[in-house]
């Protein structure tokens, strides 16, 4: 399953992130018996049947109890296991934030949190199921790495990269099924190292998650209007790729695009970095805004938030022309 082939890349795109998770964890556990997979009654989302059948001793379901999920996983991690804990991103990182703070941040126990329905992927269920503060909540926790994979292959690479890691991490899964293929071929993935996806001279767009599909489309639309944009996959929000951010500081405009409230996410992380630098670019922070959107289908929610490709292209063009957005 986790072999990188053209066929698998196509299958991963069709499945979407949540249904990649179970089969990928099965392969990882197959080679790493000390890896455990834990959930709070959302296992069926992850196409986990084969995992449960093959390695029942490596699967822990604590029921609908996110606070206990974190504590239980921390206890297991402390006994020498490497635990991946997955449930709804918002219930995981908001409801159980104090448990994450004490067990993973303060004690430094290296549980790997995986948030499903990060952003607005399940926005049809209403704002209760949107994760729009998860990056903010996890990013401020000491020791925590925060990773937002762009597509199925990058999710698999992230999960594999964490199999021996001793530090805690938060992996945010975004999109639904039929997610864009950002990488058509294998590439070098390293946590903390941003990946340029497209070159350009007028502006840089930093983004991550499945939203990158729309960002690349926006860059293409802008190209047709004579504006060339560099696009960078900033899959790791923490630690930031500071070298890359210094390299692009001279661009006329740095745009961040994310499925997150305006406060505390990718845009804030980049702005915090530049605030302490001698040279800072002008920034445009594209986000889900400052309110919880009402329930809608995913594509409609992106539109409500101004995050579709044409809307992002217009907003970037306006910003470059000095107009208000």
């Amino acid at each position, binding site marked *: 399953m986790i072999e990188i082939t053209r066929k698998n890349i196509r299958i991963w795109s069709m499945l979407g992130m949540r249904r990649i998770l179970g089969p990928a964890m099965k392969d990882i556990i197959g080679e790493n018996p000390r890896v455990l997979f834990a959930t709070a009654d959302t296992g069926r989302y992850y196409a986990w049947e084969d995992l449960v059948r093959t390695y029942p001793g490596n699967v822990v379901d604590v*029921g609908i*109890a996110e606070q*206990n999920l974190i*504590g239980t996983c921390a*206890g*297991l991690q402390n006994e*020498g296991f490497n635990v991946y804990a997955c449930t709804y991103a918002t219930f995981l990182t908001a409801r159980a934030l104090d448990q994450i703070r004490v067990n993973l941040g303060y004690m430094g126990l290296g549980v790997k949190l995986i948030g499903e329905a990060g952003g607005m992927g399940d926005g049809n269920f209403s704002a209760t199921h949107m994760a729009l503060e998860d990056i903010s909540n996890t990013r401020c926790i000491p020791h925590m790495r925060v990773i937002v994979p762009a597509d199925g292959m990058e999710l698999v690479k992230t999960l594999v990269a964490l199999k021996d890691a001793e530090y805690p991490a938060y992996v945010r899964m975004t999109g639904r099924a039929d997610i864009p293929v950002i990488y058509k071929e294998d590439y070098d993935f390293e946590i903390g190292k941003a990946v340029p996806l497209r070159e350009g001279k007028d502006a840089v767009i930093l983004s991550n998650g499945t939203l990158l599909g729309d960002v690349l489309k926006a860059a293409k639309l802008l190209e047709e209007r004579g504006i060339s944009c560099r696009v960078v996959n900033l899959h790791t929000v923490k630690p930031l790729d500071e070298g890359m951010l210094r390299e692009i500081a001279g661009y006329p405009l740095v745009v961040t695009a994310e499925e997150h409230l305006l406060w505390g996410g990718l845009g804030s992380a980049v702005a915090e970095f530049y605030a302490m630098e001698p040279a800072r670019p002008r920034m445009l922070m594209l986000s889900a805004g400052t309110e919880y959107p009402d329930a809608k289908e995913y594509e409609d929610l992106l539109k409500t938030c101004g995050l579709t490709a044409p809307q992002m292209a217009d907003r970037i063009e306006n910003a470059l022309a000095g107009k208000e957005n």
Partner: protein
Amino acid sequence: MKSREELIGMARRIRLDIAQMTWQSGVKGAHLGGSMSIAEILAVLYGNVMKYDPERVDMPERDRLILSKAHAAVALYAALHEAGYISREELDGALQGDSPFFEHPKKDLRHGIEFSGGSLGQGLSLGVGTALGLRMKGLPSKVYVIVGDGECDEGQIWEAAAAVHHFGLRNLTVIVDGNGLQFDGKKTEVLDPGDPALRWEALGFDVIRCDGHDVEALQEAITRETDRPKAILAKTVKGKGVSFAENETAWHTGRLTDELYHQAVEDIEECYREALGVHD
């Protein structure tokens, strides 16, 4: 195996050290009430029940103690001194200056502290993970989690208790320090959850009620073989052994002036003599 008298002596020393740490912390004070109430529980666990070796702090087969009501840290430090993990000098510095022994304990296996604590309601979940992990590894070690009766207000305790039942964690024992008081007043007046025994029983625990200051009763309860996970409801007195602090809500935390400290020492000695059955 320590005798009843030796365990009572150990509880006495734990109390004297709690008083001393509270006194030496100066104006900050310490959580005296809920520390005094678990002196016998800790004496029995470290004195006669638990398997551990301060020379091999990471020994896989060691039993694990998790102090979920972590504000009773000074009691834990005193017990860890008895057990050989914390030196006299270290104990004398606790709660002061750069000492690593804070008002709430920080994870420090070298000194026998399995986990950090302070945010209530979290220790039983850590116990679930630990007990599950030990079972997965095939280790015979036991897990003891001390929770407060006030702490049982926290919903996470009951999420974790359900998990203990679900996973059938017979290697885990919960000890509830039932001192009947919490920060704002009497347990029953602040939040009365009904009979706690019914809650633990409903979740499949073998419930044993006992006098939490009777070392023999505690030892019998903690070591009793049962088919199910065990919850020991230890009836205790908050501030036990210190006349002015016993059953006093205000003594959840407090500072000991020189005068009060000397009074506390006298009271603890009196409590010790009473426990031994020696009368003046």
